[in-house]
């Protein structure tokens, strides 16, 4: 079938500024949007620039806006699109470097700000630290995060203020706060109990909708808010 791909273009090295290019392509219904972009890059215009790696939704390279919402290009099939015209734009709220490539530095800076690593200063046992299946499943949802930035860049609070740590950072804090083996929950809650922590979340839910890993992002943020409010990790 024929698909029209309307792609955002911006090359800092030419004078064209930002604009859209339209490509008409022959596609299979089971093609991924990423396949369409590859088709353009390989056969039509090699200057089209985007990130990609694993191509099946695990590496998190190819978060873009497809028809106005954040998606991974490799997880949307042509047959899932409502129209045969596909609008492709870079994710919002990060500087555009070239075409669909954005500067991820602020995103990772926020991620690193929430102590996104396991902290337990007790000397480890000879074998593994024990953890019951229930304790393990408590934070399972947030371990799925692939740091693709789909959630953070779908958040209106992040769009208007770059200083907001963003849903992704809170999700990664949640993963450790609720890990029964970890000891730095209080520090993380202190970090997130801040003007640019959880309080910029206005439960807009764009993040939950955008997450390609189907993490309940807003729920995780809500649980962190509640933990701050009650001092309990339930």
């Amino acid at each position, binding site marked *: 079938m024929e698909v029209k791909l309307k792609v955002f273009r911006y090359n800092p090295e030419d004078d064209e500024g930002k604009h859209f290019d339209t490509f008409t392509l022959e596609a299979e219904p089971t093609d991924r949007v990423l396949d369409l972009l590859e088709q353009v890059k390989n056969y039509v215009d090699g200057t089209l620039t985007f990130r990609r790696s694993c191509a099946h939704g695990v590496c998190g390279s190819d978060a873009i806006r497809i028809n106005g919402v954040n998606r991974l290009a490799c997880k949307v099939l042509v047959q899932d699109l409502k129209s045969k015209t596909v609008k492709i734009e870079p994710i919002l709220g990060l500087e555009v470097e070239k075409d669909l490539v954005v500067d991820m530095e602020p995103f990772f800076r926020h991620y690193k700000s929430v102590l996104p690593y396991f902290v337990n200063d007790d000397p480890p046992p000879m074998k593994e630290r024990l953890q019951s299946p229930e304790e393990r499943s408590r934070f399972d949802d947030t371990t799925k995060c692939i740091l693709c930035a789909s959630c953070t860049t779908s958040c209106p609070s992040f769009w208007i203020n770059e200083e907001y740590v963003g849903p992704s950072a809170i999700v990664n804090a949640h993963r450790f706060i609720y890990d029964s083996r970890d000891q730095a929950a209080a520090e993380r809650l202190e970090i997130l109990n801040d003007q640019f922590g959880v309080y910029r979340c206005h*439960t807009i839910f764009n993040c939950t909708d955008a997450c390609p890993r189907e993490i309940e992002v807003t729920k995780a943020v809500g649980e962190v808010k509640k933990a701050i409010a009650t001092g309990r990790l339930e």
Partner: protein
Amino acid sequence: MTLDRKVGLLAGLRYKGGGPMLAWILHRITGLGMIVFIALHVIASLLGGDIGIAINTVYQSLYFQLFVVFGIIFHGVNGLRIIVLDLWPKFIEYQRESTWLEWFIILPVYGLTAFVMISRFLAGE
């Protein structure tokens, strides 16, 4: 050179966030609307006199009242939804359903109120 990260209002509104995003936008607008309404009311009663009466006429007009009533009902119901979800994050799983549910409450209540208001206005009360 990179393109600025700034997301304009229009670019933001073009993001297809769906029901919950709409609810958030309306919550803001209705909240700000009520502040304006109450501010007008307070100013009017403080000032009194001609200016007070002039302001009173504005906010007592049917059209303004229709907006205000919608604002109050929406802001109240949506606010309660947010509070419920904040206090029991486990219900956030049903956030999509919760926005549907709130419209099922808001629309009949507002419809009924608006009907009463309009019919009384037409009856000249």
